[in-house]
């Protein structure tokens, strides 16, 4: 199987597994899902290192979202 197919299948599996697992655990915060998706995405990208047509704007968007979520959590802790 070529690298691209392996990457897409792995990413699909990781995202589906994370969604089902968090839903089963009755997670109701969207930021938890986004954080796990970000980790899934970067794990799959780091392992398979797929080629990209343009800059990886999905990765950039996820990274920004992840940073924002973490910053909010840190602020919450600091304010308490």
């Amino acid at each position: 199987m070529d690298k691209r197919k392996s990457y897409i299948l792995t990413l699909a599996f990781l995202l589906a597994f994370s969604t089902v697992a968090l839903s089963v655990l009755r997670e109701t915060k969207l930021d938890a899902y986004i954080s796990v998706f970000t980790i899934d995405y970067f794990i799959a990208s780091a392992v398979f290192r797929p080629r990209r047509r343009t800059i990886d704007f999905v990765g950039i968007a996820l990274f920004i979202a992840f940073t924002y979520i973490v910053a909010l959590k840190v602020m919450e802790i600091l304010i308490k």
Partner: protein
Amino acid sequence: MKLIDFAEDISFWFGLTLGLFGAILAFFAYFIALSIPLTALGLACAILGLSIALTPSSPIPKLAVKAMLEGSCLNLEALLEEFNVEGKAVYMPPRDDRVFAFIPLSSNPTQVEFEEINKAPLRVLTSAGGKLGLIIFPPGSEIVRLAGIIEGLAIEEALNLTLIEFLEGADSVKAVAKEDKIIIEVLNPKVSSELPKVKHSLGSLIVSVAGCTLAKSLGKPIAFIEEVIEEGKVKAEFKVG
């Protein structure tokens, strides 16, 4: 890559459709259905779809690359045939940023000194230490240059960069250095050439690219000794000069 190339790739449209579907699902699930798991499912679809759209199925048609590589080997085969070359190639570290190979005309009379080869003028038919041979630029020399291999890179890392990541010419590659010898094992090579003279003197295409990579990463002459083709793998032996 131009927009027209995107459009010709069916996986781009599939990915874009999945991404759009995921975005719409996430929007409705979040604002209308008020369901977080469904919103997450939509986001997951969007991420997967956009990833598929962003990943080209084949940046350059694989058959075209294979045809070009084999075509360049045909010219080499004709050249080696013309001069009735019997010797094995010595892959030399770059001169003018390109790895080149010296192939002595006769097979093994006396060992040509590597330093003499380095001093030899860059001509097709040249003499190194009084020994006649051909100087050629194998297809691997350009691959190594474009893959961005630098001197000092670990051999296995350099081989992985050129053969697996840049060329996508095999499933995996292993390298073992023993004294002045390097043995490489390439699993499931995807490019091959059935040209007897090229195979004898330079090794098969994947081995020749490996030879160029070693010469560049080590910065030393690399003599091709032999290769053994087995079921699904190629083993090759090189001597470091």
